[in-house]
């Protein structure tokens, strides 16, 4: 018995030694690295991961980890103090911000877009406005050649086919952006109750609504079903070559999603927002969707990184470096599908660098 226990113990120690050796062998040679651990928005994840790669060429000692569990989980981990920073699509609510007052900074770091995609052969450059989209997702516009759609698209031959309406089946920030746009631009047709991460889609009761899991699921459903319509993150629409609809913005123009149109929306949204990263940004999610201004794309969104103002020891310097880098160099290398933030926003974000201090103990 004792012999067996000893053998077991030996095996455990041997495997630990082997694993440690492999870990040290595989690890890139870096002295005195500082690790920053973040969590939150899965939309932001590929970008943060890419930045963590890029930043090493300038600051090899800085290791950034990020856990994409969702904006809600990220905010709660941030409030519970188990992470160094959080990523979130909506900023802190006014209430949460007031509780943490003075101890956090919130920076919109990257812009995203939601595209309305459709699968109707022979129809390119379809124009839609929020009212027609709301009617489609309510199930009240049933055919592609309905008067409501045809009115917006003179000169385009629309087929007399039933519309298959695709939405997300899982709880999703993309859905929240989409429904919030419908509500802001067509409040009579799309009431507040239908805004959210997984609303009760009226079109489902007509039997023509179907749900897909994730952006991938919606993309595949739209590709597979002729005469369907759906909404996905812009990068999925581009990657899969789906037809993208032009949407009416607040100024009455029909705009296709593009980096310039998204930056325009971000720039115009800033007028109603605080001019400092430690202000109350709680209306910041709302402001960028259906933003005013010529050339703004209405389904624009941005994602925030949340930092504390105080960090122990070397982490403070690491956070300062990270914030400064993502608002300068980092904006030059955004991943496909994201849009860099406009100059105006970068200069607001950079004010945060001065606010990060070493915690006094």
């Amino acid at each position, binding site marked *: 018995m004792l012999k067996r226990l000893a053998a077991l113990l030996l095996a455990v120690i041997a495997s630990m030694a082997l*694993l440690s050796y*492999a*870990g040290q*062998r*595989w690890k890139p040679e870096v002295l005195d690295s500082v690790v920053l*651990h973040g969590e939150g928005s899965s939309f932001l994840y590929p970008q943060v991961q890419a930045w963590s*790669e890029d930043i090493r060429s300038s600051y090899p000692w800085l290791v950034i980890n*990020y856990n994409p569990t969702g904006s809600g989980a990220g905010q709660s981990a941030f409030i519970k103090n188990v*992470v160094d920073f959080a990523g979130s699509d909506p900023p802190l609510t006014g209430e949460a911000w007031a509780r943490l007052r003075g101890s956090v900074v919130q920076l919109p770091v990257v812009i995203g877009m939601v595209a309305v995609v459709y699968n109707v052969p022979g129809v390119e450059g379809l124009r839609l406005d929020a009212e027609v989209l709301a009617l489609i997702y309510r199930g009240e516009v049933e055919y592609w050649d309905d008067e409501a759609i045809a009115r917006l698209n003179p000169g385009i031959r629309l087929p007399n086919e039933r519309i298959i309406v695709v939405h997300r089946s899982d709880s999703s920030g993309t859905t929240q952006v989409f429904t919030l746009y419908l509500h802001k631009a067509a409040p009579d047709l799309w009431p507040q109750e239908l805004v959210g991460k997984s609303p009760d889609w009226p079109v489902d009761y007509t039997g023509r609504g179907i749900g897909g899991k994730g952006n991938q699921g919606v993309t595949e459903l739209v590709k597979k079903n002729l005469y369907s319509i759906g909404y996905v993150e812009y990068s999925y629409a581009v990657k899969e070559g789906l037809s993208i609809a032009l949407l009416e913005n607040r100024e009455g123009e029909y705009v296709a999603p593009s980096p310039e149109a998204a930056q325009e929306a971000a720039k115009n949204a800033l007028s109603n927002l605080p001019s400092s990263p430690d202000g109350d940004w709680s209306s910041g999610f709302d402001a960028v969707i259906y933003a005013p201004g010529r050339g703004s794309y209405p389904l624009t969104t941005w994602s925030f990184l949340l930092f504390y103002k105080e960090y122990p020891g070397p982490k403070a310097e690491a956070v300062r470096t990270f914030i400064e880098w993502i608002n300068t160099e980092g904006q030059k290398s955004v991943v496909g599908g994201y849009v860099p933030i406009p100059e105006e926003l970068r200069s607001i974000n950079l004010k945060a660098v001065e606010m990060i201090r070493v915690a006094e103990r």
Partner: protein
Amino acid sequence: MPDWRRVKDRIFTVATVLLALLAVAPLFHILATVAIRGGSAILRGGVSFFTDPPAYPGSEELGGVGPALLGTLWLGLATSLIGVPLALLTAVYMVEYRESKLARATRVFTSSLLEVPTVLIGMLVFLVVVVPMGRYSLAAGSIALAIVMLPYTVSYVERALDGVPRTYREAGYSIGMTRAQVVFQVVMGIASRGVAAGVLVGVAKVLSETAPLLFTIGSARGSYPTGPQSLLEPGDALPLLIFQFAQTPYSNWQDLAWGSALLLTLIILVIFTLLRLLFREVKL
């Protein structure tokens, strides 16, 4: 004049075989897809698939799953260290003190633990371990996985210990052994294969678990665990990487997920092969 009884018999046989094939077809489809797509990813990456961190999303390069592979191995080891003694002693108690109220309650609790969604176990560990520690860690993940492992290993080991005939125990007592000696030297010895099987089933089960890790280890995709002290730091694991990379639109990350799926399948396959070997010998 056909013999109807024979025809009916034949129809029945054919139907059974077809239905059995239908049942295993999806499994083979999954295995084949994982082998083909994962195999080509691993071949493309070469050695660096096992050692490097993931490459930039959407780039031509693949990178690797080094931190996640190491993390999974560390998790397996640490989970066994926590979970196996716990499960063994629980099973021994349940068999030896079968009649006691506490043993009965333990049986009910361990078997109902099977029904608890594993994500809840992860959230519990988040509140009880991660928040007080102030950070995610591989150790927290191991604790969550050990809880997930418990009911599987306990029920296997309990059955194995139960199967040892009473006469062997009596023989042990008759030469003056204490209860502990009888349990650990006689019963465990005879049931050792069953016990080992229980441990392996438990380990195989938890190595492929994603949900308990979501809120416990923190997917630290850039940090290599370099020794036992790394258990107290955030880490990564293969199932978590598969889950998170498969949801992104970047094909190099999706390839990494496929490769990791193959890697994980192979690890599990090795464990189950060990299991089969153990069981075959029991029959002799």
